[in-house]
């Protein structure tokens, strides 16, 4: 997972030199209601993949707006964004 720094639900902790240095590139996002620092590529697909989410299983909502799948690579995340994964759960698209 391309999260970085120490701002998470675990609370504050001292950063190592590497973490501190890397922190300059970090974004603070709220993902699924939890604060996370993220240092990967800023597009939505990269965030999904960094978290082990299959981009085919979920719609993504940023700050309340649902994205189109084809925009996953085009839309860049910004510091402070609230990201929600709207997982498809319904038993698949196959017949019973």
């Amino acid at each position, binding site marked *: 997972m391309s999260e970085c720094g120490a701002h998470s639900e675990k609370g504050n902790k001292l950063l190592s030199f590497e973490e501190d240095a890397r922190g300059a590139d970090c974004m603070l996002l709220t993902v*699924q*209601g939890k604060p996370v620092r993220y240092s990967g590529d800023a597009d939505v697909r990269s965030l999904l993949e960094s978290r082990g989410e299959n981009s*085919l*299983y979920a*719609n993504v*909502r940023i700050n*309340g707006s*649902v994205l189109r799948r084809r925009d996953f690579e085009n839309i860049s995340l910004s510091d402070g964004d609230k990201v*929600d994964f*709207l*997982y*498809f*759960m*319904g*038993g*698949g*698209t*196959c*017949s*019973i």
Partner: protein
Amino acid sequence: MFNLTEEEILRYSRHIILSEVGGAGQQKLKDANVLVVGAGGLGSPVLLYLAAAGVGHIGVIEDDVVDVTNLQRQIIHSTTDVDKPKVHSASESMKQINPHIEVDVYHERLTKDNIFSLLENYDIVVDGVDNFPTRYLINDACVMKKKKLVEGGILRFMGLVMSISGGETACYRCVYEEPPPPGTVPSCAEAGILGAVAGVVGTLQATEVLKMITGVGEPLYNRLLQFDAEALHFHELNAKRNPKCPVCGENPTITELIEYAYTCDTQAPGSTG
């Protein structure tokens, strides 16, 4: 006055003692008509709890038969029920728990040809289906007929619940406008499901139905609740009505029922959620 027998008053005494429910609420439960679509992983706890609670008139529609692979989570069915139609197995279990209720069984698949006539007899619908085509069919029909709907879905260690008052609150399409592309989202048969997760989600759905009937509390309207069993985390999202929703938005493009095709690359056996 209430039309409850002494035996019923005793049976439901733990409900009736709740001041928010009381005798009046129990009478509402007795007078209620609820249709549960699917008697599988979600339908099992929903049907059992609605029956036990004294919901007077419960319909269950399901075209499948009990398979041994269902029994890990579909707790309304027993080992001796294997190969029996699920609607019959479910009905027998419900009547054993509560002989005071009526159960309508429909051993058939829900389609665009039968859904409207079925909905006429029921006030609330519970979605316990295992496929997206039927899920969207139910949502659209409930919006068009202004029925209340309790959505539920499960996969692996996750689940979701959303309550809908058709035409008044956000519907499933307000959040999930179109089904996922065929073959992209696996079924429980393909990806697995922790049995108790079906119990959590189905029990939440049953709770929503009982709240809707009795008027207790606030239904999960305009909200989507996701459950992550691995982290034991509930995540609630606001889900306001979408003005661009194709079925309940300002200019709906879906004005007749649609049945999406059932297609997939790998046909999974016995895959009822």
